[in-house]
């Protein structure tokens, strides 16, 4: 999978002078790359993710996914991209509080296709929250929820993993564990990574930094 951004700029930033390596620039990202997009608050981090997922179109310029302009991709094709092309860890996590951890993971659309529940259970063990397996997500702390959201994003096929501040409520040790888990799955899926964060640095190997 391959992203191309041509002079992309949110409407709200149109008349501003921006010091960004993405807005109003031509940028290409392939799935053999890992990119850290460093973004301070108010620079359009969440907007950028929404543009990539086709959830918003309040921008000028163009976004291409595998050479196809995003607005010309029909609903069915986008559903396929969301289910098997891109996996996302949203900043607000997008979990279902009334479902258990297990149910939150098994609700994934591609779940039945080769991704067994026991793998998710093992990952929960790797991230020290295995006892939360049958607990409702609403009862978990935000840090625990973040780990569940990360595991859910890894329990499906993807060519790009997009993470919006995935470690914001995790300590260093848990961040390292999550990073290792993500690295492992990126390798298995031969997928690229777009990581958006407030920090300029991260512990991923061979990661390239762009400024939003």
């Amino acid at each position, binding site marked *: 999978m391959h992203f191309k951004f041509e002079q992309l700029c949110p409407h709200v930033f149109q008349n501003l002078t921006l010091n960004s390596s993405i807005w109003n620039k031509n940028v290409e990202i392939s799935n053999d790359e890992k990119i850290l997009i460093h973004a301070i608050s108010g620079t359009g981090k969440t907007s950028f993710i929404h543009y990539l997922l086709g959830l918003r*179109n309040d921008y000028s310029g163009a976004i291409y996914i595998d050479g196809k302009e995003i607005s010309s991709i029909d609903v069915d094709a986008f*559903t*396929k991209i*969301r*289910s098997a092309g891109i996996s996302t860890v949203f900043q607000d996590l*997008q979990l279902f509080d*009334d479902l258990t951890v297990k149910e939150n993971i098994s*609700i994934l*659309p*591609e779940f039945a296709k080769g991704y067994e529940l026991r793998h998710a259970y093992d990952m929960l063990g790797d991230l020290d929250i295995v006892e939360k397996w049958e607990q409702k997500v609403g009862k978990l702390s935000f840090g625990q929820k973040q780990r569940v959201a990360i595991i859910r994003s890894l329990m499906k096929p993807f060519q790009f993993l997009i993470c919006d501040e995935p470690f914001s409520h995790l300590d260093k040790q848990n961040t390292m564990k999550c990073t290792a888990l993500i690295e492992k799955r990126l390798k298995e899926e031969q997928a690229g990574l777009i990581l958006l964060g407030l920090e300029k640095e991260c512990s991923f190997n061979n990661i390239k930094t762009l400024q939003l």
Partner: protein
Amino acid sequence: MKQLFFKYQNKKQLVLASLGTFLGLFFLFTSLHFLHKIYNYGENTEMLSKNTIVVQKKVRSGSLLGLSSSEFSNEEIEEVRSKPFVEKCDPIRSNTFKVVLQIDDPLIPAFNSDIYVQSVKKGYLDVKTDRWDWDEKSEILPIIMPRDFLMMMNNFLSASNIPQLSDNLVLDLKINLKIGTRLNRETIHARIVGFTNELSSILVPEEFLIWANDNYGEPDKEEISQLVVKSKDGQFGLLEKYLDEKELESKKSQLIIAKLKSALSVLLSIISIVSLLTVFLSILVLIQYLQLILTKNDYEIRTLLRLGHSPRMLIKVFMRYFVLLFSIVTISALLAFLPAKYYLQDVFISNGISLEDSISYYLYAALFFVSSLFVFSILMSTKRRIFKTVNT
């Protein structure tokens, strides 16, 4: 996923809407079924042709004292024939021999009755010629049964705690006519081919009556006290006026049945319309309920779409739930309709109105229309909402 979407349910609203739909459908099915059956009542089984009536002289005190005759003379028959609004007129022939009707059928207990038989010319009957043919070699005699007789028989059955007979069952009864006196008697096997409201006697083919009168009857006893008259199309009113002037009368049953049919049809039409409105309103409440569920599940729908679930799959979840609910309600209404149909049918039979047994196609049409409307409305509401959420 069902657990996710339907957790915020206000069951009260759902139960009320389902109950409304059930009642609406039940009354719609029942009223439409009987509307159709009442409308068609007598259409296929009434054997006297359109615009045809049987007339006789009015009974007056003079005739009781023997001062005036109830018979028609040839001149009187010719006078009726000569009227411009009369298409044709013929005497009704009667039996001059003794006839006993015997029902020999396992369906009902043995039944014997002295009866009269009459015949009219073929042209006055709506019966296919091959079913009304008779000659001396025929094994079965076709007969047309007066409805009064059927009603009397059903009253007898009802009094004996035996199920009453519908038209279709009566058509299959094995009937014998014993004709002649004890010394010269013959048993004729008969089969009913239709019914009439216009005569009180059993109708037989003219060939049979001539043959039986010649062989078993008393010569010169035949009287012509009834005529069958067919008016020209659209001039039935003139014929009725003429009959009044001449102090002739016709049996009013057809007129009464027509009035009864018309009154019942109006009543059932009103019930059908009210039922249809109830069904529409209930469907509207169910759609509102669906929209409420969709609104309450806005976050869930959006998240599932973002995770890669297809909009069509989510639409299917809602469709399956509401179509299943509607199917249960519809099947319940149909199940409630069946005993109601049998009960009402029995009431009609007790009152001499034997309706056809099969379920009216009006009911199937209503079922198809209401179901299609429901599925279409639910599909469009869900589709609009979910596709609106796809790119948000």
